[in-house]
């Protein structure tokens, strides 16, 4: 059974139209991460939550925001998607910082 669940698996949006991707976990892990992965590249960390503490990566554009309303759920909001934001978005969780990260299946975002 999937322990890190991402919805939807595929998302199509229009240029500039806000979009929200969701992630839920059944592992009760403290840390949740969002990564962006483009074709043939390694995942790139956007930000993470350690419990309710938000940690943004220095080079993450302001266009990307995140919310974690409770332990189980975390959302990625893209306020004004551009063509360059088309990618696979991966959610991951870990029990604590520095522990093994477990990934969801990802959401493939297309921007038209």
């Amino acid at each position, binding site marked *: 059974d999937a322990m*890190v669940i*991402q919805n939807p698996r595929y998302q199509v949006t229009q240029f500039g139209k806000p979009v929200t991707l969701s992630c839920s976990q059944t592992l009760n892990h403290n840390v949740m991460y969002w990564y962006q992965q483009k074709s043939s590249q*390694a995942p790139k*960390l956007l930000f993470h939550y350690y419990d309710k503490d938000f940690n943004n990566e220095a080079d993450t554009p302001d266009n990307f925001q995140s919310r974690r309303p409770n332990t189980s759920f975390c959302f990625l909001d893209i306020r004004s998607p551009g063509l360059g934001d088309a990618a696979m978005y991966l959610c*991951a969780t870990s029990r604590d910082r520095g522990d*093994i990260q477990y990934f969801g299946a990802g959401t*493939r975002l297309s921007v038209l």
Partner: protein
Amino acid sequence: GESVGLHLPTLSVQEGDNSIINCAYSNSASDYFIWYKQESGKGPQFIIDIRSNMDKRQGQRVTVLLNKTVKHLSLQIAATQPGDSAVYFCALISSGSARQLTFGSGTQLTVLP
């Protein structure tokens, strides 16, 4: 900063042969190392990890070797099967307060019939 690199971007092996995927890293201040497998259209899947105080760890059909002297990590897959075809990423967890996960660039493994 830290960097993790892979020697070869692609690797093709015959079904039933053993596969070896290599990874070099530059920062010796790493607590442990992880191998992930990512199939097309899916998220990375944890395969095996190894602590920095170990030099070998075995799992089911997989063995990870760590050589801290030359900062080299390898993943060996025994009796490679078609289902092993995927991109394999090595990653390391840095020591210190940040404890970030840093990915290598990935190796595409193709298993030939």
